[in-house]
């Protein structure tokens, strides 16, 4: 099947939301640098934040090949309404319980998305998905082991984990906000779609949460935090962009 203009638009939409998620969550998680709960975790969390920026860069490069602007311009010269990250990604780091649960929810979704994309007919994307498989596996391993540790830790750690899950679950469902080209992406085999991804994600995380002695809220009673994919964001995103792009905007043509 030939790729029509609609397929390419759908592909761009997919790449933008993935890359924006990674750039923004990577920037957010880097805010733990120097503040992590212990030295080793500080280094690990910062290193994973860097990984996310690298993944974003790889996807912005694919967008450039599809005719979009270069990665620096795309990353640093847009306002919040032009970003397609989910609202989960842009929220402040909060306390470590929230950041950890955000990583758990987000990185499992990302790992499964990459797994599905490894067979995408758009080969450059399939290659990127295969390249980062091990990196993302470590990120989910990190989240799973902490979840188990703190779920079976003290009264305080378990309570914090459960409260963070309750507060974050609806935001996490916002990851799977349907795009405008779901059918087009599926019919040619670019991507199996957000609904399929959400189902795989729930199946994957449910037993891990249960084994950690915790529970997921009833999905039918939670409102997904949609909007991010369409450029509707919380008031937290624009200040983050202002800070992230402060130096770049002084002289966008500077050679680094």
């Amino acid at each position, binding site marked *: 099947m030939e790729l029509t203009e609609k397929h390419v638009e759908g592909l761009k939409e997919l790449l933008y939301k993935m890359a924006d998620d990674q750039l923004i969550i990577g920037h957010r998680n880097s805010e733990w640098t120097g503040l992590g709960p212990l030295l*080793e975790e500080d280094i*690990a969390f910062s290193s994973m934040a860097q990984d996310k920026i690298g993944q974003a860069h790889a996807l912005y490069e694919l967008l450039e090949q599809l005719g979009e602007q270069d990665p620096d311009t795309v990353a640093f010269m847009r306002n919040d309404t032009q970003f397609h990250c989910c609202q989960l990604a842009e929220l402040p780091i909060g306390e470590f319980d929230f950041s950890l649960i955000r990583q758990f929810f987000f990185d499992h979704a990302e790992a499964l998305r990459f797994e599905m994309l490894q067979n995408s007919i758009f080969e450059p994307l399939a290659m990127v998905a295969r390249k980062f498989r091990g990196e993302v596996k470590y990120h989910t391993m990190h989240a799973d082991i*902490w979840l188990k*540790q703190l*779920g*079976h830790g003290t*009264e*305080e750690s378990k*309570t914090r984990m*459960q409260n963070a899950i309750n507060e974050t679950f609806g935001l996490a469902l916002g990851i799977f906000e349907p795009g405008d080209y779901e059918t087009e992406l599926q019919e040619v085999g670019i991507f199996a779609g957000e609904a399929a991804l959400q189902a795989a994600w729930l199946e994957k995380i449910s037993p891990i949460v249960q084994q950690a002695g915790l529970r997921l809220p009833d999905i039918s009673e939670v409102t997904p935090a949609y909007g991010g994919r369409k450029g509707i964001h919380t008031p937290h995103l624009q200040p983050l962009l202002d800070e992230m792009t402060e130096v770049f905007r002084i002289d966008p043509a500077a050679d680094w």
Partner: protein
Amino acid sequence: MSIQSLDPRVTRAHIEENTQEGMQEPLDQLQTYEVFQQKKRGTHHQHVGSVHAPTAELAIVFAKEQYARRGVCVNLWVVKTSDIFITEYEDEDIFSTTPDKYHRDPESYKVMDRIKAYKEKQLQQS
């Protein structure tokens, strides 16, 4: 059965008590684990340093980023520092005469010279 805590916020959250693995006591300090890294399959693991961690699983998670985020690595071991049995420096003298024992060092035998001499002799005879 949900947790009944002295902290009313915990009780209000209706958190189920763990049944399989009981609650743990808070740790005052984390223990240390020694980290051993293997750079290629089949080669020796080499000691690269230590990490603080509450469990071996988390020690592995930390070791990966502390010691294996750059360069090549195929495998990691962690072992509790307290599980390593060590010699005392005051007993260092048990090793003191080791460097003198040339007879234990294969290179101290001039075997190659004798083999060469034997081979030459054989050549001359033939």
